[in-house]
């Protein structure tokens, strides 16, 4: 049986248990969010002992070499001594603005206090001073002065509740990441692109579209944003203006419920997309937001001929 040494204490792991689960079971307030080896918010550093190779998925080589690992996917074969990550692996940032994009979507501005490199469309994990970790997609471009996030208010949501009601302005948070492969890769500039997001799934797409336009993407770009009701369609004026300025960009707002709103399509987003885009061989696609819709849309795009390796997606899974 493996023993974990952490913070001067010893914890016995149960057979098959991950280091993170073992620590949480013993009441250690270890930061975590996805619990599946992608968001990086639980990252720790090994001081002694041997890591299974599967415990460092997606980490930079330089981090691997320093013994960083993800305790949520680490089921060790023997004893480990691990510590919290140092300041070199996380970037401190301050909340500099919070405003409403719609009745239930906040725009949160963050100013980093150290360089934080990312690609438009990737996501980061915000870790509050209390150790609460939540992942958010980045809506801003890398050279903009602050990082912009679109945060949906979740009833009784801890992070979204703090951001909306807890006077977060000026507070320091730690940023982990960036993570994810949902971003614009330059090249194949003539390729047609379809971007579909529901709710705050618009956030990464807002970055990706602007990045593609700025990189001189010459193929058509179709952006489809879905919401339950018209009131959920935020950034509508900005997106309509962007589409007016770039003839190759089209913007289609879609709502599930709501009649007669001009310029808005009514229907379920996957049906609307499947009908409007039925032949997608050679296209590139981005799909973000609600996990169930992301899954369904990926399948529809693929069956309409989009190559699987050209479909990029982020499912906004709730924290585990």
């Amino acid at each position, binding site marked *: 049986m493996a023993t974990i040494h952490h913070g001067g204490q010893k914890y016995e792991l149960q057979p098959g248990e991950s280091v993170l689960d073992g620590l949480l079971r013993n009441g250690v307030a270890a930061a975590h969010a996805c619990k599946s080896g992608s968001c990086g918010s639980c990252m720790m550093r090994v001081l002694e002992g041997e890591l299974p190779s599967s415990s460092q998925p997606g980490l930079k080589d330089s981090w691997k070499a320093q013994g960083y690992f993800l305790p949520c996917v680490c089921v060790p074969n023997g004893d480990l001594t691990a510590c919290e990550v140092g300041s070199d692996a996380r970037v401190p940032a301050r909340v500099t603005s919070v405003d409403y994009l719609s009745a239930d979507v906040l725009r949160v501005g963050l100013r980093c206090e150290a360089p934080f490199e990312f690609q438009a469309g990737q996501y980061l994990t915000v870790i509050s001073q209390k150790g609460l970790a939540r992942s958010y997609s980045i809506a801003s471009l890398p050279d903009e002065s602050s990082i912009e996030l679109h945060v949906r208010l979740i009833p009784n949501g801890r992070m979204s509740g703090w951001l909306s009601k807890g006077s977060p302005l000026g507070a320091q948070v730690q940023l982990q990441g960036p993570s994810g492969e949902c971003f614009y890769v330059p090249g194949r500039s003539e390729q047609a692109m379809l971007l579909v997001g529901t709710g705050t799934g618009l956030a990464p797409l807002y970055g990706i579209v602007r990045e593609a336009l700025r990189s001189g993407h010459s193929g058509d770009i179709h952006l489809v944003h879905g919401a339950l009701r018209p009131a959920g369609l935020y950034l509508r004026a900005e997106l309509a203006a962007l589409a007016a300025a770039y003839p190759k960009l089209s913007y289609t707002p879609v709502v599930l419920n709501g009649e007669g709103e001009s310029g808005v399509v009514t229907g379920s987003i996957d049906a609307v997309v499947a009908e409007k885009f039925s032949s997608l061989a050679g296209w590139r696609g981005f799909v973000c937001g609600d996990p169930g819709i992301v*899954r369904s849309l*990926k*399948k529809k795009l*693929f*069956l309409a001929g989009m*190559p*699987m390796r050209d479909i990029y997606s982020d499912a906004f899974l709730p924290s585990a």
Partner: protein
Amino acid sequence: MHIMTSTITPTLFEQLGGEAAVEAAVDKFYRKVLTDDRISHFFEDVDMDRQRGKQKAFLTMAFGGPHSYSGKDMRAGHARLVAMGLNDSHFDAVVELLGATLKEMGVADDLIGQVAAIAESTRPDVLGK
């Protein structure tokens, strides 16, 4: 006269085009699988990105390429599906779709026959017989 006896015959995998052929086949094959009412339900709740990797493993194996699956692995890997009712008719459907995919890619019939034979050899393990 001296006859060269050591002409190197390319393997089936090489004749098909190796890794590149797997890459070219995987999306075509997977689209057929997902839209075939006889078998699509076996693939319903599997993550598509992960599933694509598994389809590539399947194709590499059927194309006679390098792989490290044992018969026991095939048994274990499909046991969940056997419990769902996987039987000979589903197996035949997969072999049929595989052949149709290769045909579309312009692969010669005798090579398709060899691929089908490799797939056939896994039948007892895949079906847990």
